[in-house]
């Protein structure tokens, strides 16, 4: 187990380097440092010297490979550095400021989605073959076919404007935040519901056809017990894999959701950084995002081994 973890962590190093390289290359293809310097040195037509100074200050005057090595090394040591923008604030400070809204919304929608989708899938699987099942799965396909945008616009319109139950967008700290988080969470849950319920149902029906279900029935175990104990624990394995993969979202938040609802989270920070071509921020955020993703995969494997005793982490 420990050996497995160490090997997985070692294996993640080349992946992280690859991610850094990808960001680096994409960045240089997007904009040259000179352009960024011009942009960040305000509109007052900066002199060549000012630009040079700026590049020197941010380390953009070194050879390209040196820049890559320096920044990558810094990221691996979790020295995230300063933003390229005029204020030049520390990336870490911003992350500390804005992780909470992302985390709150992501955690709420993650737990709500898994509870609701799993319960609905269980209900549909229990009544498999009945009209409830047929209408339920059809409804899932309908829900899958509606675009995310319509859920958001519809949600904002109905809850925010017509019913005036929730704010349309924005965020406030403290308990007040729950009021603002409500709509994004509802949208996140509903927009993913169709696909998840259908997928979870398939997982369960696959298990229903297994021989051990017949054995359980032959023992006289009731149908509810067969579904909620025998099938559920086995179906938990694929459900886990699909769900734990969503964990990176707990850090980066849903980039989309945050920019739609104007929530000052990490996703919004990242989108702003991209739009203003703040490379220092982008590379730090992408690096951390990749780190959390890899962490999520390892977590998936561990939870896998915890549920399914056949899996050995070696």
């Amino acid at each position, binding site marked *: 187990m420990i050996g497995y973890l160490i090997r997985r962590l070692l294996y993640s190093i080349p992946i992280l380097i690859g991610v850094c390289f990808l960001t680096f290359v994409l960045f240089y293809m997007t904009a040259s440092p000179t352009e960024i310097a011009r942009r960040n040195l305000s509109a007052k037509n900066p002199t060549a010297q000012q630009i040079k100074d700026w590049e020197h200050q941010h380390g953009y005057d070194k050879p390209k490979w040196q820049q890559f090595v320096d920044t990558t090394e810094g990221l691996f040591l979790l020295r995230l550095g300063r933003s390229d923008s005029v204020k030049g604030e520390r990336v870490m400070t911003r992350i500390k400021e804005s992780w909470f809204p992302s985390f709150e919304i992501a955690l709420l929608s993650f737990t709500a989605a898994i509870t609701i989708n799993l319960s609905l899938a269980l209900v549909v699987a229990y009544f498999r073959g009945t009209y409830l099942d047929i209408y339920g799965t059809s409804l899932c396909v309908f829900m899958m076919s509606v675009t995310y*945008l319509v859920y958001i616009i519809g949600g904002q319109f109905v809850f925010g404007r017509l019913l005036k139950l929730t704010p349309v967008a924005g965020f406030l700290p403290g308990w007040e935040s729950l009021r603002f988080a409500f709509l994004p969470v509802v949208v996140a849950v509903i927009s993913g519901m169709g696909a998840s319920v259908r997928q979870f149902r398939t997982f369960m029906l696959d298990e229903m056809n297994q021989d051990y279900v017949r054995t359980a029935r032959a023992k006289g175990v009731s149908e509810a017990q067969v579904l909620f104990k025998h099938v559920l624990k086995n179906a938990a394995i694929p459900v886990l894999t699909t769900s734990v993969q969503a964990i990176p979202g707990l850090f980066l938040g849903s980039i*989309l959701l945050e920019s739609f609802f104007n929530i000052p989270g990490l996703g919004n920070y990242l*989108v702003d950084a991209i739009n203003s071509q703040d490379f220092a921020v982008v590379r730090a955020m992408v690096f951390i995002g990749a780190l959390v993703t890899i962490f999520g995969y390892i977590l998936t494997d561990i939870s896998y081994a915890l549920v399914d005793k056949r899996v050995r982490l070696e």
Partner: protein
Amino acid sequence: MQAFTSLFTISNLVPIVAIVVVLAGIRRAGRQPLWAEAYRRLGRNRAAIFSLVIIGVYCFVATLDSITWKSNALAQPESVITHLFNAMHVEAERTYSAPFAKMTTGEPHPHPLKGWHVLGTDGSGNDVLLETLRGCRTSIIIGGFTSLLITPVAVLLGMLAGYFGHRVDDLIQYLYTTLGSVPGILLNIAFLLVLGPGLVNLCFALGITSWVDLCRLVRGETLKHRDREYVRAARALGVRDIRILVTHILPNILPVVIITVTLNFSSLVLSETILSYLGIGVPAGTGSWGNMIDAARLELARDPIIWWNLTAASTALFILVLALNVFSDALRDAVDPRLRSS
């Protein structure tokens, strides 16, 4: 005739060639027992036929919108649909107007409309029906062209990784794990910034993120087939690796690939709307449901509510995606009854 050819541009061949190739492929496949059986099963599924007809209608509209000619030597080339609307004198108005309305909406002093608009007009006075119809082409291109881009790459890399294993596998796995570790939407944005806006570039950007899953699937399937007896037998007979891959393994994984690509088609269509919101979708001027829905976001706050724009675009999108989902489900069930979801 001379005049006609000069007005009728060469780019019109593209949609025609695409349709001919697709139809020929479908017919060819029908000669194989697996697909012949699948067609037979599909033929019995009424929902599948119905959704196929709907997809066909969308494709037809998209084709009409792709065939262009200039009305005179100096004009911009315009599509069949635009010509049709021009012929019916559906002209651009000043600004918003409700469906069937006679006056514009949202102006302090409403103006009488020049024409008659079934679905009303949008903020710049364009006919919503025309805009909606023009969105078909964009959606079909995004789904179809992106699939066309990623499928060969993903299948090739997946088969190489699965078949040769070792170094090749490590390298290819490394490639897609790295890509998969970056949030997909970020990659889309970054690639669009690099490539610049445009419909074709959008397809490339979407392709970058969506080949990973298919590649992983193909790799897994190849691994499964590599150790089957028929492959071992072929290898024992001294058949070359390339030949084994092309003649033995490829035909066996093709059904799974086709099913996955069809299932993926609808999510590609859906992602166009999201990228449009982020401002990196289809450039303005190309019909796009994403842009229409995005524009409608602000309109709902107005009084009176401008609902027709949003409704038209999202309904058109919904029907296409629903038909695609129903059809790809039916196709999966028809090709491989074992994968049946019930």
